[in-house]
C-alpha cells in the first residue's frame, strides 16, 4: 500500500483540516496536503498538482460539497471525493452520494476515514484503468474503421454464422445498400450464387482463409459485379473465433479482359488450325504464286510480243500443271490467228496446223462469249473428242480468253491436268489471272512494237528525206557546174586572146565575168560542203603536215592579189614550227577562206599571217589579221553561225552564202582545234585557229627556212 497520500482539503476551517491531517498521519500516511476554501482555489489546486483524494466540508460560508462535486465533473476529474461534515442528516447524505461523492463521514467519527480513503483510492485506480482500457479500445476501433474505410476494396466482416457485422463504403457502393442496411443481414443473400457464397464462408472457417474466391455481387438495383474475395477468420484476444473478414476486389474489367483474351486465343487457335489447313494449300500454291509473280515481272519487261507469248504459254502450263498448253492470238479483225503456239508436246519436231486443234465450239465459247471453259472427264463430254494436238487422249481441258481492258487478244487452252487430275476452280482462277496478266503484257508489247516501228519509220523517212536533200543538192551543184564550166572556159579563152585581140574595156568586162563565175563556183562548193557537214559526212584524213609547206604556195597567190589591191602582206613564221596532224586539203581550205575574207574586207593597210606554237605546246596557232572594217561586238558571237553574212561587205564584192566561216569552224573542230576571232569595229579583225601538233614525231622534217615573205 502506498503510504504517501496527497490530500486536497476543501475546508474553511484550518483547525478542522489539521484535525483530519493529524488523524491520517496517525493512520500511517505520509501526507502532502493543501487546503482551499473556494471554487477558484480548488480549480487552481487541481490544475497545478495531482492529488489522491479530496476531503470536502459539506457546508462552508461561500462554498459547499455539491458545488465542489459539480466543479469536479466540469473539470472531468475523477478523484475519490469524501464529504466530511459536522451536522448532516440521512437525506443530505443520500443526495451527496447521488451527486458523485464517494463517501460521507462525520467530523466527530473519523474511524472510517482511512479505510474509506484506501477503498476509494483503489476504486479510482480501477476506474482509471478501465477508462484507459476503454480509450484504448475506442482508439483501436477507430483505427480499424479508418483502415476499413480507407481500403479501396469492398470489406466486410461477418460473424461465424455469416451475418454481416461490418462493411466499408466500397461495399456499400458495390451492394447499393447502406452500412446500416447491410449489418445484420446474411452475407450470402447479396450474391447471385448464395450457395457458393456460403461455401466460401465454410471454406474460410475450415481453412482459416480463402484467396481469389470469385463471386458475383448483385446490388440493390440488380447490377452484377464480379468480385474476387480474399477472406480470413478473425479471433478475439483470447483466440476465440469472432467471424470472417473478407476483402472483395472488383474484377469485372479483368474478367472481361480475360474473356476477350480467351476469345482471342480461341480465334487464334481457330486461325492457327485454319492456317495449318491452309499451309498445305499455300505450300502447294506457293510455287505457283512465285511463278506468277515471276511471270508478271518477265512479261512486264518483255517487249518482244512473240517472246512474251512463248514464255507465257510455257509458264502457264507449268504453273497450272497441265501437260500441254496452246495459245492463240487473233488478228486485229479477229478472223484469223496471228500467232499460234503449243507447249508441252513430247515430240520435239514441230507440227504444222491449218487451224488450232481445239474443238470449234470450245473456241467459240472462249472467243465469242469470253467465257472460261473447264471440262473434266472427257469421256462424258463429246466436245473433247479429237482434240489432242498429238493424237493422244485428252481427259481434261481449261480454256480462258486473253482479255485486257475489254480487248480480246486471243485464248489460252490448257490440256490434261497433270497426274490425270481435274482442273480445279483454283486452276481456273489462276488461269484467268495469268491470262489477264499476259493480255496486258501483250498489249504493252504490241504497243511498244508499234511505237518502235513508228519511230523506226520516222527515222527512216527522216534519213530518206535527208538523203534526198543531199542527193538533190549534189545533183543541183553538179548540174550547175556544167554551164558554169562553159562560161568559165569561154571567158578564159577570150581573156587568153585565143579568139583574137581584146580592147581594154572588153578585157575589163570579161574579167568581171570571170570573177563572178569563180565566186559562183565557190558558192556551189560551199553548198555541197555544208550539206555534207550537216549530214555528218564531212571527214578529214589527218597526216603529218608542215603548215609552212602547205601555206607557202597559197601565200604566193594571195600576195599577188593583195598587191593588186595595194595592201601589204606580211608573214611571221618561226623557223621551227612543228609538224601538225592535219588534212592538208582541209586546213588549206580553212586558210584560204580566212585570207579571202581578209582581202574581201580590207581596202587599205595590211594583211598579216603569223604562226607560232601555242602556250601549252600542243597546238600550232595560226593568226590571220587584217586592217579592214572589223566586226561589231554584236556580230562577234555570230560570225561562225551558218548563213551568217557580214553587214559590212564592201560594195565592190558580193555577199557569199554565209557558209565560209561556218565550214571553217567545222573543219578546225574536226581536227580537234579551235577557231575564234578578235576584233573591234573599224579596227580590223584577227582570226585565230589552232591545229594539233603531231603527237609522235616521226623522223625529222627539215623545214628550217628563214623566210621573210614581206614585200
Amino acid at each position, binding site marked *: 500500500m502506498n503510504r504517501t497520500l496527497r490530500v486536497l482539503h476543501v475546508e474553511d476551517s484550518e483547525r478542522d483540516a489539521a484535525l483530519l491531517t493529524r488523524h491520517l498521519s496517525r493512520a500511517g500516511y505520509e501526507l502532502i496536503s493543501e487546503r482551499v476554501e473556494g471554487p477558484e482555489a480548488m480549480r487552481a489546486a487541481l490544475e497545478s498538482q495531482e492529488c489522491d483524494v479530496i476531503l470536502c466540508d459539506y457546508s462552508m460560508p461561500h462554498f459547499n460539497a455539491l458545488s465542489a462535486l459539480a466543479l469536479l465533473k466540469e473539470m472531468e476529474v475523477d478523484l475519490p471525493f469524501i464529504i466530511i461534515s459536522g451536522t448532516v442528516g440521512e437525506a443530505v447524505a443520500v443526495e451527496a452520494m447521488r451527486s458523485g461523492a464517494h463517501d460521507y463521514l462525520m467530523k466527530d467519527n473519523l474511524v472510517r476515514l482511512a479505510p474509506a480513503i484506501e477503498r476509494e483510492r483503489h476504486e479510482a485506480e480501477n476506474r482509471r484503468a478501465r477508462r484507459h482500457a476503454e480509450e484504448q479500445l475506442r482508439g483501436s476501433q477507430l483505427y480499424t474503421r479508418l483502415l476499413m474505410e480507407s481500403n479501396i476494396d469492398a470489406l466486410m466482416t461477418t460473424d461465424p454464422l455469416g451475418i454481416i457485422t461490418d462493411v466499408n463504403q466500397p461495399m456499400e457502393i458495390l451492394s447499393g445498400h447502406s452500412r446500416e442496411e447491410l449489418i445484420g443481414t446474411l452475407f450470402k443473400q447479396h450474391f447471385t450464387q448464395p450457395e457458393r457464397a456460403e461455401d466460401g464462408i465454410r471454406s474460410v472457417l475450415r481453412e482459416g482463409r480463402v484467396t481469389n474466391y470469385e463471386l458475383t455481387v448483385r446490388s440493390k438495383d440488380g447490377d452484377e459485379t464480379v468480385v474476387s474475395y480474399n477472406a480470413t477468420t478473425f479471433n478475439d484476444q483470447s483466440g476465440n473465433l469472432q467471424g470472417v473478414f473478407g476483402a472483395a476486389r472488383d474484377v469485372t474489367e479483368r474478367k472481361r479482359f480475360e474473356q476477350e483474351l480467351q476469345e482471342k486465343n480461341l480465334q487464334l487457335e481457330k486461325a492457327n488450325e485454319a492456317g495449318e489447313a491452309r499451309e498445305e494449300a499455300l505450300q502447294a500454291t506457293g510455287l505457283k504464286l512465285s511463278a506468277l509473280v515471276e511471270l508478271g515481272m518477265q512479261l512486264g519487261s518483255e517487249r518482244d510480243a512473240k517472246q512474251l507469248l512463248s514464255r507465257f504459254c510455257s509458264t502457264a502450263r507449268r504453273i497450272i500443271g497441265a501437260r500441254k498448253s496452246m495459245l492463240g492470238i487473233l488478228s486485229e479483225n479477229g478472223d484469223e490467228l496471228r500467232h499460234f503456239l503449243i507447249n508441252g508436246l513430247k515430240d520435239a519436231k514441230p507440227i504444222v496446223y491449218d487451224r488450232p486443234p481445239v474443238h470449234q465450239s470450245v473456241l467459240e465459247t472462249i472467243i465469242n462469249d469470253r467465257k472460261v471453259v473447264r471440262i473434266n472427264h472427257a469421256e462424258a463430254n463429246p466436245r473433247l473428242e479429237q482434240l489432242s494436238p498429238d493424237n493422244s487422249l485428252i481427259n481434261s481441258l481449261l480454256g480462258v480468253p486473253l482479255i485486257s481492258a475489254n480487248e480480246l487478244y486471243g485464248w489460252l487452252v490448257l490440256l490434261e491436268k497433270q497426274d490425270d487430275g481435274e482442273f480445279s476452280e483454283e486452276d481456273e482462277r489462276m488461269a484467268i489471272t495469268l491470262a489477264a496478266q499476259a493480255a496486258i503484257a501483250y498489249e504493252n508489247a504490241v504497243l511498244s512494237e508499234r511505237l518502235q516501228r513508228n519511230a523506226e519509220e520516222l527515222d527512216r523517212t527522216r534519213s530518206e528525206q535527208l538523203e534526198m536533200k543531199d542527193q538533190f543538192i*549534189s545533183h543541183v*551543184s*553538179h548540174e550547175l557546174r556544167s554551164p558554169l564550166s*562553159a562560161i568559165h*572556159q569561154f571567158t578564159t579563152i577570150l581573156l587568153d586572146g*585565143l579568139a583574137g585581140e581584146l580592147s581594154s574595156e572588153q578585157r575589163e568586162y570579161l574579167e568581171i565575168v570571170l570573177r563572178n563565175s569563180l565566186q559562183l563556183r565557190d558558192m556551189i562548193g560551199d553548198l555541197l560542203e555544208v550539206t555534207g557537214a550537216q549530214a555528218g559526212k564531212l571527214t578529214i584524213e589527218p597526216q603529218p603536215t608542215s603548215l609552212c609547206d602547205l601555206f607557202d604556195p597559197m601565200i604566193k597567190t594571195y600576195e599577188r592579189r593583195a598587191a593588186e589591191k595595194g595592201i601589204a602582206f606580211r608573214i611571221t613564221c618561226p623557223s621551227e614550227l612543228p609538224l601538225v596532224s592535219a588534212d592538208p586539203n582541209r586546213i588549206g581550205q580553212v586558210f584560204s577562206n580566212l585570207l579571202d575574207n581578209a582581202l574581201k574586207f580590207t581596202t587599205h593597210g595590211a594583211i598579216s599571217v603569223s604562226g607560232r606554237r601555242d602556250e601549252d605546246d600542243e597546238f600550232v596557232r595560226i593568226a590571220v589579221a587584217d586592217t579592214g572594217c572589223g566586226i561589231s561586238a554584236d556580230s562577234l558571237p555570230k560570225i561562225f553561225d551558218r548563213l551568217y553574212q557580214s553587214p559590212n561587205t564592201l560594195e565592190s564584192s558580193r555577199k557569199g552564202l554565209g557558209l565560209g566561216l561556218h565550214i571553217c569552224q567545222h573543219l578546225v573542230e574536226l581536227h580537234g582545234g579551235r577557231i575564234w576571232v578578235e576584233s573591234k569595229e573599224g579596227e580590223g579583225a584577227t582570226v585565230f585557229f589552232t591545229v594539233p601538233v603531231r603527237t609522235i614525231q616521226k623522223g625529222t622534217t627539215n623545214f628550217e627556212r628563214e623566210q621573210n615573205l614581206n614585200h
Partner: protein
Amino acid sequence: MKGNKILIIEDDADLRRALNVRLRASEYETAFASDAVMALSIAKKEAPDLILLDLGLPGGGGFSVLERMRNIASLACTPVIVVSASDPKTNEKRALAAGAEAFFQKPVDNDQLMRAIQRALLN
C-alpha cells in the same frame, strides 16, 4: 607534147568546144566523143595519146568507160584525166584507183589542167 592527140569525152557540146579551142591553142590535136558507147569505138579508132574523160555520160558512166578501156590492149596504157562536175571527195579516189592520172572538178583551172596534160604526156 605539141601534136599529140587528145580525145575529149564530154556530153556537153559547149564544153567540148571550149576544150577544143583551149587544146588546139596549145597545138594539140583533138578528137571527140559525147557518150559512153561512142567513146570506146572512137578511142579504139583514134588511138589518142591522152583522154579527157567526163564522168557523167549518157549511156553509162565515165567509170565504165575507164574500166573497159583498161581491158582494151591498145588503150590500156593511154593516160586518162577525169574532168567532172562531181564531187572530188566521192569520185577522185575512185577515178585514180581505176587508173586515171588526175581528177579535175569543173570548172577547171586551165593552167592546172594544161600542166597535168603535159605531165601525163611526158610519162
